[in-house]
């Protein structure tokens, strides 16, 4: 199982996501990228992120994405 940082790196290898606290404001992800990211997270963690949770605030940074994944019932790698 990959970490959130690894998945983000696969989707947008040009960015250092660990250095940002707000992916949207920093222009590292846009609302369209969230569509791609949700599909990758669903597949990697065996979850189905509800459409109601596809909100910018849930994809602001690695910590908020991890919180979302846990809320969807998946365990994260250490």
């Amino acid at each position, binding site marked *: 199982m990959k970490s959130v940082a690894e998945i983000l790196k696969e989707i947008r290898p*040009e960015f250092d996501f660990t250095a940002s606290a707000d992916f949207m*404001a920093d222009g590292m992800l846009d609302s369209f990228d969230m569509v791609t990211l949700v599909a990758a997270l669903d597949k990697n963690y065996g979850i189905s992120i509800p459409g109601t949770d596809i909100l910018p605030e849930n994809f602001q940074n690695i910590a908020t994405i991890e919180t979302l994944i846990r809320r969807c019932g998946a365990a994260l790698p250490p």
Partner: protein
Amino acid sequence: MRQISSVDQVFAAVQQVKGSASAFATNFYPVRSKLETWIGHETMNVATAPGAAFFFRKDRDFEHLYFCAADLPTLEKELLALPQINSARLTLDLIGSEAAIQPQIDILQKAGFKAHTRLLRLSRAAQSGTVAPATALPKNFHLTVADECDSAEIMKMIETCFNPLTDQLPAMYELQDAIGDRQILTVKTERKVAAALFFETQGLTSALRYWVVAEPYRSQHLGSALMQRYFKTQDSVVRFILWASAANTDALAKYEHYGYKQDGLMDQVMTSAAITS
């Protein structure tokens, strides 16, 4: 249907749908600053129904349609119940992977929509791609940031060369704002705009919106000079993106020359039955 007067009204309508959603479906990805501008210019209307909200944005002689629905059956039911569905000139964008948007395409086709154009998103990492050294412009041409007085000429070029139904053409106020933000580069000759490049930079990402050379000035490397200057001036940008028609193989080849590559995201543009061309 009622006119929207605040951004909060938009988010409240979306939230109401989300509250009852089992499989929320949408093609609406609003950016607050854009919403504020559209609402300020009185171009946004909303129609709500149990489990669905439809947003209409006026643009020239048609409207963009955005939807939020609790699930796909509700989307189908309420879309078919919209009074203007057969008579209004509407366009709609479905963004995602082909497999993800196919169920929505099926529903829209039942409501009389047709597949119009497929757009592909292309991305370019700042350090990738080969950009040749700056091209020398022909005599009497110079490259400069657009000025307020160029707005009508640039708008005419954009409207001549792009499709309003698919290319999200700017309103005049958006174009003027872009000029104010120094986000339009031009090549001019004898005070006429021969070529223009319109971009939007947000943080580390820059979107190329329109890149156009007026017909009499083509094959003189003006477009190439603009692209090179664009990359050079956006030196803090890490990712460059753009949308291009899947059918426009010439344009795709040009963008690939500058290091852009398809990144897997597509936009299926659909048009309502009232749009016949």
